[in-house]
């Protein structure tokens, strides 16, 4: 026993069940572990000599969700899989491959460090680079020396289950875009420094000599400036020229039209003056203008790329392999090898790899991911099944009809991606305002040009330039998208995915929040609801035995028997478990666990499996989730129920303090709902609501002038969510891909939801500040430029500073704050698995 009892797991930070004797020596001290899974991962990290991970990390690791199964990845070594997913490595070397894996549970830089260091130990690994923001691992390896299956199994054992990424899923495109922008930015920055130094020489020379520097030197400096500025402006300004041309081709004035016009006008008038005449040149202003504009664009691009945290949902929703029937038996193949007409075997607890039709076998199929149907449905020969659905009872032989991009699941993911790319309403509004403003600038510049032509033709170009530059509505156009992108990123870091940024605008106006109970206030974790003993087994003793047995299992249901869940029964378990030693522990995935305690073998798990093994008849009612413990002729039937999510009370208090009415609407029985409402401090509750009933409730509140948000589990509540002004769904893993809600709260507790309610008003405030500032600046600067008070270089500085100010102001939203341990897990854990079997 450790000398000082520590209460949380050293690896994942979850509470350690009292009396659990799982600990591991790391850095010379014994560290407590909460379960066999965490212990396995931690001992692996220690064995690899990477224990410093625990010093580096800033986020806690995720608790392993399932037992590692090295055989799962065997199909990844097949030539067809490698050919499809991996390309020949960049510096072409014989046999080397490079591919992208999507890892789960990536939280912080220490994860990237750990993964890279771990992979470096394998022979033939050239490069392993993990992007912390989206969990993508770029891997450059030699399949002949370390097979991909070994790498994948290692990563899973390390706590980062990998998935193959579909080629062309955007990672490469993002990276190329980032690199291109970086090059533009570097060229513009270096060019700006050079040209500014030449210009400064001119200004200083003029000041020192009391007049102007001698004409020959002046001309030389102008020539050199031109030599630098022209290629720099032509190269680094490409994003603006392209975008301006694209806008003109589509027949409207984009923000980049006056930008490109100003750059080219200044550039070519300066070239003409340098070569053929004398007068003021604007090379320094041009390059500076380009640099600061690029800086703003770069910030927007980074924010946008980092906000796509729900990417590669498709890869996560599908299994790693398929078992294909051949003439002589079956073989494991990669999903890319499947084609229509193949027959695949899908066993209990496995995910269907492709759309198809049941050919033989019977089983229940959980399609919650695809159709939203929460109850598994029986499937018989002739029935269709969809890729991504989970077989929860029985086994099926499926004849494949559609694979990969042709599946229904792929279509859903595409649709969702489409919805995410849609420009938010606020940004479109700002675009329209900016569009009007551009017309105004162009007209005003033309009028000013005519006026100055009459007064002083030499000043036409400087005035027009100043006007075009100073009044560039960049700040106006950047203000909203940068704020929304930064907020999206900040929320994603806290575990909230923003599918529809418009929702952020509506949140501050909310008057009512309707909460669902099951799946929302309660989570996927189970706790003991009741226990029934037979054959003289004591209740406390039964629970203690269960707790001791389940410690060998990493299955989520095991947690029901741990302390920390507020259940009267688990306290007993915690007290009694300390003295129980389990010998010869065994665990069978999808069935249960067994072990010898005090000379008696006990089985704990699915009722049919236990009664089969223990050889006794057990009468188990059909409703609810139950597990059975049996051994030595005695047995206990344990009923499990969903445990409440953490953070629920805080969320409700926060909303009530903000003056928002919280309403509980549930399909559950009156008594249960009333009890939850009382416990949570909710005054208004409605029990026995069907989805239609909930929708009617929302409609009624809306008719009374309310702005209503609905917080639900996103699958059963889909129609209700659609009816609310703001819809927020709780989802984990692959379910994220399916929900149609505006905001998706990931992870197991409700803290991220509270964060979303807290951040949204700040988003609105910052958008307003940005738009107000941009409008005020442009309105004030345009007349000053028109009467010739602002020289072009000052205009470039003013415009740049106003844009930069707006971008920096927006970035304040991106700072993630107060992230709670375990709040933002986006791991794959199909909800049904938790309750299906022990």
């Amino acid at each position, binding site marked *: 026993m450790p000398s000082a009892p520590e209460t949380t797991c050293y690896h994942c930070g979850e509470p350690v069940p009292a009396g659990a004797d799982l600990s591991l020596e790391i850095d010379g001290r014994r560290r407590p572990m909460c379960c066999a899974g965490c212990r396995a991962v931690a001992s692996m990290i220690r064995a690899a*000599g990477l224990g*410093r991970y625990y*010093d*580096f990390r800033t986020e806690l690791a995720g608790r392993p969700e399932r037992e590692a199964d090295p055989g799962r990845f065997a199909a990844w070594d097949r030539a067809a899989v490698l050919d499809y997913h991996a390309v020949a490595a960049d510096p072409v070397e014989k046999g080397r491959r490079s591919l992208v894996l999507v890892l789960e549970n990536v939280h912080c*830089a*220490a994860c*990237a*460090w750990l993964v*890279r260091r771990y992979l*470096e130990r394998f*022979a*033939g690994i050239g*490069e392993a*680079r*993990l*992007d*912390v923001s989206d969990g993508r691992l770029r891997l450059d390896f030699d399949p002949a020396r370390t097979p991909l299956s070994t790498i994948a199994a290692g990563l899973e054992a390390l706590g980062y289950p990998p998935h193959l990424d579909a080629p062309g899923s955007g990672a490469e495109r993002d*990276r190329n875009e*980032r*690199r291109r922008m*970086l*090059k533009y930015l*570097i*060229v513009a920055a*270096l*060019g700006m420094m*050079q040209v500014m130094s*030449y210009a400064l020489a001119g200004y200083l020379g003029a000041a020192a000599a009391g007049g102007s520097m001698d004409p020959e*030197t002046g001309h*030389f400096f102008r020539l*050199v400036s031109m*030599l*630098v500025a022209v290629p720099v402006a032509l190269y680094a300004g490409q994003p603006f020229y392209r975008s301006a041309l694209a806008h003109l081709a589509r027949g409207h004035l984009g923000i980049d039209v006056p930008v490109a016009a100003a750059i080219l006008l200044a550039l070519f008038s300066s070239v003409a003056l340098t070569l053929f005449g004398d007068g003021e040149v604007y090379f320094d202003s041009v390059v500076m203008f380009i640099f600061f504009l690029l800086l703003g664009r770069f910030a927007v691009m980074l924010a946008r790329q980092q906000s796509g945290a729900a990417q590669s949902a498709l890869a996560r929703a599908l299994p790693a392999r398929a078992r294909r029937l051949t003439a002589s038996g079956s073989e494991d193949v990669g999903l890319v090898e499947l084609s229509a007409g193949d027959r695949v075997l899908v066993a209990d607890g496995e995910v269907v790899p492709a759309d198809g039709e049941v050919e033989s076998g019977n089983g229940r199929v959980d399609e919650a991911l695809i159709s939203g149907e929460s109850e598994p449905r029986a499937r018989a020969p002739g029935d269709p099944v969809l890729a991504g659905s989970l077989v929860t009872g029985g086994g099926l032989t499926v004849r494949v009809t559609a694979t990969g991009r042709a599946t229904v699941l792929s279509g859903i993911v595409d649709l969702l991606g489409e919805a995410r790319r849609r420009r938010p309403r606020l940004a479109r509004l700002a675009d329209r305002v900016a569009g009007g403003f551009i017309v105004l600038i162009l007209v005003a510049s033309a009028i000013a040009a005519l006026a100055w032509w009459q007064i002083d033709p030499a000043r036409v170009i400087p005035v027009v330039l100043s006007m075009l530059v100073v009044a560039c509505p960049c700040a106006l156009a950047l203000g909203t998208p940068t704020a929304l992108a930064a907020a999206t990123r900040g929320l994603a870091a806290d575990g909230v995915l923003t599918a529809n940024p418009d929702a952020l605008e509506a949140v501050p106006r909310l008057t009512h929040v309707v909460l669902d109970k099951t799946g929302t206030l309660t989570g996927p974790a189970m706790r003991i609801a009741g226990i029934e003993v037979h054959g003289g087994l004591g209740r406390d003793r039964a629970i203690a035995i269960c707790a001791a047995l389940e410690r060998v299992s990493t299955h989520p249901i095991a947690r029901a028997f741990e302390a920390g869940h507020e259940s009267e029964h688990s306290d007993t378990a915690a007290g009694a478990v300390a003295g129980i030693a389990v010998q010869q522990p065994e665990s069978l995935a999808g069935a249960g666990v067994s072990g010898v305690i005090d000379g008696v073998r006990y089985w704990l798990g699915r009722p049919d499996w236990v009664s089969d093994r223990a050889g006794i008849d057990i009468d188990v009612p059909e409703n609810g989730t139950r597990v059975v413990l049996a051994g030595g002729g005695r047995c206990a039937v344990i009923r499990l129920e969903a445990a409440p999510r953490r953070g629920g009370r805080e969320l409700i208090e926060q909303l009530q303090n903000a003056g928002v009415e919280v309403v509980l609407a549930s399909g559950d029985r009156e008594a249960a709902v009333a009890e939850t409402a009382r416990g949570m401090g909710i005054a208004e509750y409605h029990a026995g609501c069907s989805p239609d009933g909930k929708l009617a409730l929302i409609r009624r509140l809306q008719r009374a002038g309310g702005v209503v948000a609905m917080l639900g589990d996103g699958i059963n509540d889909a129609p209700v969510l659609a009816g609310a002004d703001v819809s927020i769904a709780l989802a984990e893993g692959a379910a994220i891909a399916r929900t149609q809600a505006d905001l998706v709260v990931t992870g197991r507790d409700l803290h991220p939801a509270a964060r979303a309610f807290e951040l949204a008003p700040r988003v609105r405030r910052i958008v307003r500040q940005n738009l107000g500032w941009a409008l005020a600046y442009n309105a004030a600067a345009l007349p000053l430029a028109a009467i010739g008070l602002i020289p072009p270089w000052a205009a470039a500085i003013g415009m740049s500073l106003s844009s930069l100010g707006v971008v920096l102001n927006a970035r304040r939203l991106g700072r993630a704050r107060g992230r709670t341990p375990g709040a933002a897990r986006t791991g794959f854990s199909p909800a049904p698995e938790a309750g299906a079997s022990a």
Partner: protein
Amino acid sequence: MKAIYILIPLSLVLLGIAIWAFFWAVRNDQFDDLDTPALDILDDDENEHERRETQKREQIS
């Protein structure tokens, strides 16, 4: 002032080299991972040298 006629073209050459060096760095993924290299210096692994040597030998063999 004759010096500037040599020094300024020289600065242009340096500018070209600087841009080339940056492009090289971008192409070789130097800007792709800005998170983990910061942790590497904290890792006072005494076997670091040995590890790399073994790796090198492995790669050759």
